[in-house]
């Protein structure tokens, strides 16, 4: 279905990443936002609060992040497209209910505008050090989908994409931006509503009494059951079977958790989104996500001028990690370099996939600022030897 | 029952009567129904159900007035009372 023109501010705007993200969500039909202020994500909440009352939606500032995550799950089950936004400390607080969202297979979107951590850290400066937490933050086994925009324009587009992914795969989707992209103001072009493709929520077409909330059939995600239409279904965070009833034994655990994991693993080709440049014949391949993928451009240009055969991959989806692609590239390239604003998180996935077939390097730092391209260039030179 | 003064509507007074149904296998022998039946109709039986509890048995079923207190108090949905034919009231 197409976006509702009432929601879409078609035109060219000068917006920062957070505002663009909020606009993307509104264009995608998000009608419920429950959040808690935390720098540097608060602008998303504020824009939503300003825009949504005239668009038949609700903004609520909840009492804390735990309540926010719980509330967006409740609203999603009520039928609303819902989202919340936070940063590192709030992300930690939301983990339990994020796990609940995964277990209940609830579509919703959660934005983490990463800042310097750990703990209270650097509220007003960027970091990319929550990536492993995005993957493993909640307890138990599950897979996540995490997107990383590199600009306000991409923040807008990925917000819409996140809502579509959440409906398609029936799970909470993470948007892992950072303070730099969030607070960077650039031109954002919002297309006309009829050019915005939205995925409608798939509800069951079976009658009450014949439909269950988790009919895993290995064939795409189970359709949701609507509340208030006589289905009288039950769902629980306990390990459950297709009926949604708690079943406390190993067999049910096997079926339940396998589904949560397979729903992403079996669909990686559809989910993973990489933007590759100059990979053919490259000796050195750069990998990065978010703002780091832009920061490395001057270093790459300089290396190219010196004749180094260098390619790059921007990971628009960071999770699931592009395992197959990295394994392929490790066979052909001499070195893989990961640029991220942390002391090594997604880097270890790259190194693991390379499996020693090529050299791997990390250009990392503690956060608080973007990389100095000079440092990236130095590592490229080292790798090209 | 003896009345100090015969009520004016005595010919229309009817005592409700109840028909007890006990789902023995669901009972957990808590004894709420036995304790709080206002007519003392129930008693915990000596028989066992599959869980090893003693379900109640109606020792004076004819005294049940369908007050539904057992049905409401039972935590296990194991006893209920249906309305039976009302009995006209006897005046002493």
């Amino acid at each position, binding site marked *: 279905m197409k976006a509702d023109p009432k929601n879409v501010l078609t035109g060219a705007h000068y917006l920062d990443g957070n505002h663009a993200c909020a606009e993307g969500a509104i264009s995608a039909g998000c009608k419920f936002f429950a959040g808690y202020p935390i720098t540097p994500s608060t602008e998303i909440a504020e824009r939503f609060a300003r825009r949504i009352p005239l668009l038949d939606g609700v903004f609520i500032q909840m009492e804390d992040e735990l309540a926010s995550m719980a509330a967006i799950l409740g609203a999603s089950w009520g039928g609303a497209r819902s989202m919340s936004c936070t940063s590192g400390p709030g992300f930690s607080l939301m983990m339990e209910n994020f796990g609940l969202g995964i277990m209940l297979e609830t579509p919703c979107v959660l934005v983490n505008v990463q800042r310097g951590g750990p703990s209270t850290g650097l509220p007003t400066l960027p970091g990319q050090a929550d990536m492993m937490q995005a993957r493993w933050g909640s307890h138990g086994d599950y897979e996540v989908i995490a997107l990383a925009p590199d600009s306000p324009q991409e923040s807008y587009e990925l917000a819409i994409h996140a809502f579509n992914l959440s409906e398609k795969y029936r799970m909470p989707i993470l948007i892992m931006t950072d303070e730099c992209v969030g607070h960077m103001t650039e031109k954002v072009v919002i297309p006309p509503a009829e050019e915005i493709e939205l995925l409608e929520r798939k509800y069951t077409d079976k009658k009450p009494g014949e439909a269950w909330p988790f009919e895993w059939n290995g064939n795409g995600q189970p359709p949701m059951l609507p509340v208030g239409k006589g289905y009288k279904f039950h769902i629980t965070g306990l390990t459950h079977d297709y009926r949604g009833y708690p079943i406390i034994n190993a067999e049910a655990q096997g079926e339940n958790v396998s589904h949560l994991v397979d729903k992403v693993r079996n669909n990686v080709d559809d989910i993973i989104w990489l933007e590759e440049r100059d990979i053919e014949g490259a000796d050195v391949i750069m990998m990065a996500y978010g703002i780091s993928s832009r920061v490395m451009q001057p270093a790459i240009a300089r290396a190219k001028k010196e004749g180094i055969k260098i390619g790059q991959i921007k990971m628009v989806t960071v999770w699931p990690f592009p395992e197959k692609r990295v394994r392929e590239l490790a066979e052909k390239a001499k070195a893989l370099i990961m640029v991220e604003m942390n002391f090594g998180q997604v880097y270890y996935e790259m190194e693991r996939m390379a499996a020693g077939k090529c050299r791997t390097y990390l250009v990392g730092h503690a956060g608080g600022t973007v990389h100095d391209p000079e440092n990236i260039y130095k590592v490229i030179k080292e790798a090209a030897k | 029952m003896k009345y100090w003064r015969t009520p004016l509507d005595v010919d229309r007074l009817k005592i409700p009567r109840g028909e007890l149904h006990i789902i023995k296998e669901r009972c957990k022998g808590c004894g709420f129904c036995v304790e709080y039946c206002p007519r003392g109709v129930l008693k915990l039986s000596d028989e066992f159900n599959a869980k090893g509890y003693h379900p109640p048995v109606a020792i004076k079923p004819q005294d049940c007035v369908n007050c539904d207190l057992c049905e409401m108090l039972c*935590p296990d949905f194991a006893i209920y009372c249906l309305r039976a034919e009302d009995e006209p009231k006897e005046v002493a």
Partner: protein
Amino acid sequence: MNTKPVNQESQAAEEHHPMENLLRMDRIPHIWCSTCGIGTTVTALAAALEQLKLDLNKVTVVSGIGCTGRVAGYMKLDSFHTTHGRALPFAFGLHIARPDMKTIVFSGDGDLISIGGNHFIHTARRNANITVICVNNFIYAMTGGQVAPTTPISAKSATSPYGNYERPFNLPLLAASSGATYVARWTALHIRRLTTAIKEAITKPGFSFVEVIAPCSTLYARLNKLGTGLDLMKFYHDNSVIRHGIDPREADIDFQSKIIVGKFVDIEKPTYLECLNNGNKKAFGDKYRPYGGVNGNK
């Protein structure tokens, strides 16, 4: 353990308890102990729903974690078994998306008031149109009988083995001072008055709070050598005092002493959605279309 079908249990095909249409019969018998008061409270809720003749498609139950938290799993309504303490914000989100549904939160004292305490006071402050039934058995039963913020002074528990010395919450006072517009307390024994209170709480707009003092035989009664749940019910019988309309400050509960029950608060205040719509109307005037849920006013 929960997969045994109930059909073996019912002795005859025609034994149908009148409340079966509100229960998930494929999951009965439930896990609650013999002489536990939760089943009785569920009966009161079922009776209230039936007597109110509500459209059962439009009622939803949200519960948290704990013995009482299992209620959602046994009621044949759109029901949600959420994380510990977060039933209220989940229900709040659900209610805001669907104000056409009647959202009932049914959870225990530990879940709602301890880990859920923050959410409790805020949802009450907002006067969200949610009905909260809190089964208070003075203990964390499911996890083995630890002390709860409602455990009376000197009561023993797994984590207060020498007697609790922490002052407990007075739940009606907490609810009333946070802004609840309907506050009542009954015991599981006062079954008919409890049913009436639940009916009033459901029909009244705003945050309605019903505390149900219920016996816990396996933990609270056993750890404090109080007998079985039936002995606790007898205690409620002899020691409950009905005092409608008193100041909730006087409704403290001491260990094995008088329990004041009744309807303490029944006032009118605008609900959360009324405040939201009024506030936005003031800000936007005629441009504003009142919010009626994700489906509009359906």
